[in-house]
């Protein structure tokens, strides 16, 4: 074999702490290495051209590049060696940046480590063989999970691009958090006026099938061929008949359970349509509070319904769909501020969340858009906003910035002045984070035009005094303590990962980070991709995001889906398991352990049972390879021989003969 080795400087990223020419010189001493050099940027066009040229000139049949992580540029270099006329699997990479130059300070040790990693790659490459991809067809349908603004955007873009879309939403209506907002920053335009038409488009689009009150039960398959089971939860209303007339809602005698759409500020009837613009505009029964479903009598709704669509016997229903791609747009939840006992833990009625305040401001909210404080319905004069409640706070395990609270607080301060002209807002903040088009100007307007008093400091405690709430905070700019007798306190609660996100991630094989937000494939270059091919992210499920960013990501995810499904066929990764029929004894252990059902039993021509791998189904995990008692099934590109060669490269065999 003739191997060429290329040691990348990566500017000074590697060369700063690794002696690259020396590594290249050492590599020449390794078996089968006939050419070795160092290069400034291997991934650049001249860098790749140099590799191609060397392959041709030196008649190489294998290439090792020592540079960054293979998770970054393995595909880049595979394409390069392919252009040079080699099979793309006749290539190995040694990670001497993330695993060497960036983490070690001593140049000698780094240089030595880099050389050893190159040796490992060479030894593996010596045992590589050309592999060829198989092709398979994809299902031209996409699943969008979550009907907030990001999911709506992704669904509409995919549908407009000609793909069939299945949109699954856990709640009764799509719209997500945005549907609850009164106005949006920095334009102060009406949230439902912006979102409403898009929601209607979802309902009317011929390519979109909408499942609300539904959740993803299970996901199987792989890119291009996912099988998804959706649980349609019982609503006790036949939606094929329901016209959304609202008569049942009006007459329902059980009206005591908290209205979740209105953030618990008021109560809702047990059969309800959450808000006037709901899509679909259908009624659903809350089973936990419905008198008929809990006590077995009542049935008022069934009596008044003009189309007789109430069905107390309805059960959950499971629907199975095949899709080629999945967009996850499950959004976020709001931080539970009860973790701050110094803010009263709910003992003080006039301490509310920013989302509750949105509902108070909203004309469709429980107060018809009049700001009335919950305790006594009085119009507040001194309104205190406390920012960073559940953001940038290690003590509650939320060290990150939620990103949008500064902006919505400025908006709420502006709206407060609009609603109550003789009011005074006080905003306790740590830093104002307003990077965005017209964002900082907006916060300045809150202060300059609307007279909001911004106070730099946190609030240590809130306590009631007569009918006021004393807010005791710091003004660190003045260097002292301050107190505000407030009529209403609004907590700018931060964002946290959506309830159930981690469990959904398990079904989709998309890993959450330590806070439950889904991890993208690359933080800069693959922001909507995940490590599971065919599964994409949109919106705040990946990290806190405001509306423009969520919409942008919805469109980005849709463009990825459209790109994927525009291909007639996809290529499967040929690094899959392969059975050596001569050694296979047909015990079937591999069939039992394969998580993907990618191995089936067949009979050879003598009628002996043998295992066989279905190439396009196999995901290349290699569990079967370890399970096989005969060593008969080997994961291509990661065979026992290849891995043991790497081990031997690092630890040369001593006293025992090889037994591979």
């Amino acid at each position: 074999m003739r191997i060429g080795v290329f040691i990348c400087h990566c500017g000074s990223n590697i060369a700063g702490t690794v002696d690259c020419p020396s590594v290249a010189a050492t590599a020449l001493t390794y078996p089968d290495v006939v050419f070795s050099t160092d290069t400034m940027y291997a991934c650049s066009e001249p860098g790749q051209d140099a590799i191609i040229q060397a392959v041709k000139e030196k008649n190489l049949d294998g290439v090792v590049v020592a540079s960054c992580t293979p998770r970054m540029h393995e595909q880049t270099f595979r394409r390069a060696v392919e252009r040079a006329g080699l099979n793309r699997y006749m290539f190995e990479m040694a990670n001497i940046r993330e695993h060497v130059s960036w983490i070690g300070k001593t140049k000698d040790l780094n240089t030595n480590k880099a050389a050893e990693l190159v040796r490992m790659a060479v030894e593996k490459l010596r045992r590589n063989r050309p592999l060829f991809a198989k092709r398979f067809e994809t299902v031209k349908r996409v699943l969008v999970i979550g009907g907030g603004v990001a999911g709506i955007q992704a669904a509409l873009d995919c549908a407009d691009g000609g793909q069939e879309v299945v949109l699954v939403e856990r709640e009764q209506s799509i719209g997500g958090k945005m549907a609850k907002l009164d106005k949006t920053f920095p334009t102060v335009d009406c949230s439902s006026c912006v979102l409403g038409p898009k929601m209607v488009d979802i309902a009317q689009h011929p390519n979109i099938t909408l499942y609300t009150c539904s959740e993803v039960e299970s996901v199987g398959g792989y890119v291009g061929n996912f099988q998804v089971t959706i649980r349609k939860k019982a609503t006790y209303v036949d939606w094929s008949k329901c016209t959304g007339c609202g008569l049942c809602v009006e007459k329902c005698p059980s009206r005591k359970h908290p209205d979740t759409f209105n953030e618990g500020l008021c109560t809702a009837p047990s059969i309800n349509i959450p808000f006037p613009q709901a899509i679909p505009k259908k009624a659903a029964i809350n089973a936990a509070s419905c008198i008929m479903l809990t006590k077995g009598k009542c049935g008022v709704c069934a009596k008044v319904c003009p189309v007789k669509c109430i069905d107390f016997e309805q059960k959950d229903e499971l629907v199975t769909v095949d899709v080629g791609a999945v967009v996850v747009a499950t959004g976020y939840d709001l931080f539970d501020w009860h973790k701050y006992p110094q803010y009263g833990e709910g003992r003080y009625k006039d301490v509310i969340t920013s989302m509750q305040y949105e509902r108070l401001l909203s004309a469709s909210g429980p107060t018809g858009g009049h700001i009335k404080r919950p305790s006594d319905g009085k119009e507040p004069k001194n309104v205190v906003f406390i920012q960073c409640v559940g953001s940038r706070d290690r003590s509650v395990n939320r060290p990150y910035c939620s990103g949008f609270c500064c902006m919505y607080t400025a908006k709420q301060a502006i709206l407060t002045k609009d609603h109550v002209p003789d009011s005074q807002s006080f905003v306790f903040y740590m830093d104002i984070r307003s990077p965005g088009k017209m964002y900082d100007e907006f916060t300045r307007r809150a202060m300059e035009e609307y007279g909001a008093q911004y106070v730099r400091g946190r609030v240590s405690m809130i306590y009631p005094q007569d009918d006021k709430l004393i807010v005791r905070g710091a003004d660190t700019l003045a260097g002292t303590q301050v107190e505000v007798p407030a009529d209403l306190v609004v907590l700018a609660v931060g964002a946290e990962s959506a309830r159930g996100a981690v469990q959904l991630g398990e079904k989709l094989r998309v890993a959450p980070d330590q806070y439950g937000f889904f991890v993208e494939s690359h933080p800069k270059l693959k922001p909507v991709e995940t490590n599971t091919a065919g599964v994409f992210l949109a919106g705040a499920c990946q990290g806190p995001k405001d509306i423009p960013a969520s919409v942008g990501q919805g469109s980005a995810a849709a463009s990825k889906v459209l790109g994927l499904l525009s291909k007639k066929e996809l290529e499967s990764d040929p690094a899959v398991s392969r059975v050596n029929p001569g050694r296979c004894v047909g015990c079937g252990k591999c069939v039992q352990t394969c998580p993907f059902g990618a191995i089936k039993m067949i009979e050879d021509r003598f009628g002996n049972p043998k295992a066989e791998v279905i190439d396009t189904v196999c995901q290349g995990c290699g569990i079967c390879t370890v399970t096989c008692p005969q060593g008969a099934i080997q994961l291509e590109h990661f065979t026992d021989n290849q891995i043991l060669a790497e081990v031997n490269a690092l630890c040369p065999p001593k006293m025992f003969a090889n037994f591979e």
Partner: protein
Amino acid sequence: MHNIAYYPGCSGQGTSTEYDRSTRAICQALDIALTDVEDWSCCGSSPAHTVNHVLSAALSARNLAQVEAMGMTRVATPCPSCLSNLRTATHKMKDPDFQSKANALLDTPYRNTVDVQSVLQVLAEHVDPEYIKSKVVNPLTGIKIACYYGCIMNRPPALMQFDHHENPMAMDNLMAAIGAEVVPFPLKVECCGASFGIPRGDIVHKLSGKLLDAGRRLGADCFVTACPLCQMNLDLRQGQINDALHENFKIPIFYYTQLLGYALGLDRAELGFEKLCVDPRRALGKIKQPAQTR
């Protein structure tokens, strides 16, 4: 029957004798046997920890070593300041380096085997409230009480590990159990001025005055406290506070043990109401006498 070592604290011999006596009385009535720590000495109180943490720990640890010598593993103290010092010593001496430094100051080294609790915690966690209710002969019906815990009974929570650090309820529950109306006092853990009464009386006047004001706004007839220093600042200094703030507070400040003892019908002589500076008679007069004759 609980048998617990008892650490009275220095003020129990002086400014808060009524707290010490009433604590002993209610514990006896509720079958909690207290055995005084033999020849106990001062825990160091706040002056010691403001000077040096090893010195402070050693002064506390001498007493904890005495408890060990008595063959006991649990000690209770009525005083939050002592509690805080004893618990801090226990906590810091878990670090072997610190432990050897502290033990180097002592004749008898402390092995760190003693658990320190407040008497209030013993009552709240180890005595069935129903049992206390069953023992009540004079329910406190008719009196409105503000329960004030002071700043260090529950804080910092990681060290004290008792009740709630912003809204403790142990005394509230106890007072409610014996029939009193408890007002939702919002400043339960705000500092009264601590030991600055002597060197900086002005600080105590301001901070304690704020507490009294908050209690008065809620219509409280009296305060109950669990801390000798708080009680002294609020009671003994109430006249000073009135002078300094041009106020006219007349709010009696009880130890919770006194009112508990009252409800249990204990001998008044043991409860020491006469030791209070602000006359408690009007507040006690609010308590409705039981209708039936006994």
